[in-house]
């Protein structure tokens, strides 16, 4: 498959996770794909084996959105929230809450689109209620810097983060 960019994950502040991805298309098309239910259906899928059963979005400030994924054994997984800002073709901000919360409280996701030479950079920031919540998601061996795997634990031990932690306790 043609992949126009690589997903990058960084931590811009204590409470945030930032995903960045470049698409080979002008941003008004990317914005449409993010805000029209019939287009969202084509890409906003669930994990393997899950299908997107409910896909509703009222893309305007104050509007609601809701997605529900389901699989054949009857399990469902839903999320939704309220659109806080919807500025075509550059900005979409919304609250997000999962039905089965894997973190406490609610997150706020902000999508900012910028275009250059016909390519669009999508920046998706999810801000959590606290650093602790964010760290529960990220600061653990598999995902510190997200790309780090469990099989690289030993490597990580030799790194600065481990040394700093140890120095603190010494």
């Amino acid at each position, binding site marked *: 498959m043609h992949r126009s960019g690589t*997903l990058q994950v960084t931590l811009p502040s204590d409470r945030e996770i930032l995903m960045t*991805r470049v698409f080979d298309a002008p941003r008004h098309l*990317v914005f449409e794909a993010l805000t029209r239910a019939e287009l969202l259906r084509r890409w906003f*899928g669930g994990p393997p084996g899950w299908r997107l059963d409910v896909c509703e979005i009222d893309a305007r400030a104050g509007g609601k959105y809701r997605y529900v994924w389901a699989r054949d054994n009857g399990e469902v997984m839903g999320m939704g929230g309220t659109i806080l800002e919807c500025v075509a073709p550059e900005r979409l901000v919304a609250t997000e809450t999962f039905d089965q919360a*894997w973190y406490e409280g609610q997150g706020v996701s902000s999508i900012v689109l910028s275009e250059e030479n016909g390519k669009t950079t999508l920046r998706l920031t999810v801000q959590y209620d606290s650093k602790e919540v964010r*760290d529960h998601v990220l600061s653990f*061996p598999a995902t510190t810097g997200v790309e780090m795997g*469990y099989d690289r634990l030993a490597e990580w031990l030799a790194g600065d983060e*481990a040394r700093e932690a140890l120095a603190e306790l010494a």
Partner: protein
Amino acid sequence: MPSTHLDSTFAALADPTRRAILARLALGEASVAELGEPFAMSQPAISKHLKVLELAGLISRGRDAQRRPCRIEAAPLAEANAWLERYRQLWEQRFDALDALLADMKAAEKTARKSRPRRKS
């Protein structure tokens, strides 16, 4: 997904020192004293962290009363790892699908522009 179990796993892993201890144990089992050496940490400090890790099911302690060696329990870690890795993979899959959709949209827009100039989709 046993979410309370995952919660305690994540809580235990949220601390960098405990991750360091797990990293050491990933290389092989060790006693509290042995853990203290490379970590330059007091035994009570180590013991406190070990307790949290043990309650989260991330490590187990041997029965030998003298040594009580600690060993890593892979299952909860693998579970948490797999869950977050799936999250990341999910977004990669979505963005790949979005690539394909955008290619279609671009083509459709080009066709529309040819037949009807200035039409905005």
